[in-house]
C-alpha cells in the first residue's frame, strides 16, 4: 500500500526582495515593503510530503528520524536564523518564497533517498504559502 507522509518544520530567517536587474523605482513598485533596504523576517513553515510503500515490518513509509535529521542538518541549519540574501544560492536570484521553496525541494531531491519526494510547501506567513512539485 502506498501512503503519503507529511511533516512540518519551523524556521525563522530574514530577507530583502530586490532585483539588480530593476531600477530602484521598479524595485519599489514590484516589491513594495519587501524592498526595505534593511530587510525583514518571517517565521517560515516547511511542509514536506514524501511517499512510498508502507513497509510491512515497520509500518512506515520512511523512518521519521531519518527525515527529521536530514531536514535539521541540510535545511534548518542552513536557513534558520540567517539572512537569506547573504547565502550563495541567492547571490544571483531574489530570495522570494517561491525561490526558497524550489531550493528546499532541490536539496531534498539531491540528498534524501529514503522515500519519494512528492512536494515541498512553504508558508511565509499564515496567510500565504507556496508549493513546488518539481
Amino acid at each position, binding site marked *: 500500500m*502506498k501512503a503519503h507522509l507529511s511533516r*512540518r518544520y519551523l524556521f525563522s530567517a530574514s530577507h530583502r526582495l530586490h532585483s539588480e536587474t530593476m531600477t530602484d523605482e521598479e524595485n519599489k513598485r514590484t516589491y513594495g515593503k519587501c524592498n526595505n533596504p534593511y530587510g525583514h523576517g518571517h517565521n517560515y513553515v516547511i511542509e514536506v510530503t514524501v511517499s512510498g510503500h508502507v513497509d510491512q515490518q515497520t509500518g512506515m513509509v520512511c523512518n521519521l528520524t531519518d527525515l527529521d535529521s536530514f531536514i535539521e542538518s541540510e535545511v534548518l541549519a542552513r536557513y534558520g536564523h540567517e539572512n537569506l540574501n547573504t547565502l550563495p544560492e541567492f547571490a544571483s536570484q531574489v530570495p522570494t518564497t517561491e525561490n526558497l521553496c524550489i531550493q528546499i525541494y532541490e536539496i531534498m531531491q539531491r540528498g534524501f533517498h529514503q522515500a519519494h519526494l512528492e512536494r515541498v510547501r512553504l508558508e511565509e506567513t499564515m496567510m500565504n504559502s507556496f508549493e513546488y512539485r518539481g
Partner: protein
Amino acid sequence: MVYLTRKAEFSASHLYHNPAFTAEENRRIFGRCNNPHGHGHNYTLEVTVKGEVDPRSGFVVDLKQLKEVMHREVLDAMDHRFLNKEVPEFLHQIPTTENIAIAIWQRLVTKLERAQLYRVRVYETPDLFVDFYGEP
C-alpha cells in the same frame, strides 16, 4: 466533481513494536515509540469524498450519513482505546499513522453511499500527518 471533507477527532494510545525484531532493534528503529506501556495522541481525521452535486439536494453526500459512518466505523472503535490491544487490525500490525490511515480507509470505503472515498488524512500531531488515497 466536488470534494467534501469532514473532520473528526479521536484520542488513543499505541506503541510501536515488532515481535520479529530483537529488543535492541525495536528500540533503535522505533525510539521512544517503543515504550512498552504505550503513549497517546489526539488524532485528527479528515475524510474527503468526491462526487457530482445532486441537482435536487445540492449535496455531494449526505453529511449526516457520512458523520454517522465515521462515528460507527472509526470513532467507536478507536476513540479512547489502546490501539494495539483493542482494534483488530493492530493485533498483528503496528499502529503507525500510515497503518491507521489505511485501516480507516478500509473501514469506510465500502460503507459510503453515493459519494466516492477520495482521501483519508490522519494527523498524529499538528506537525505530522499521513494521506492515503487507496493506492495499492
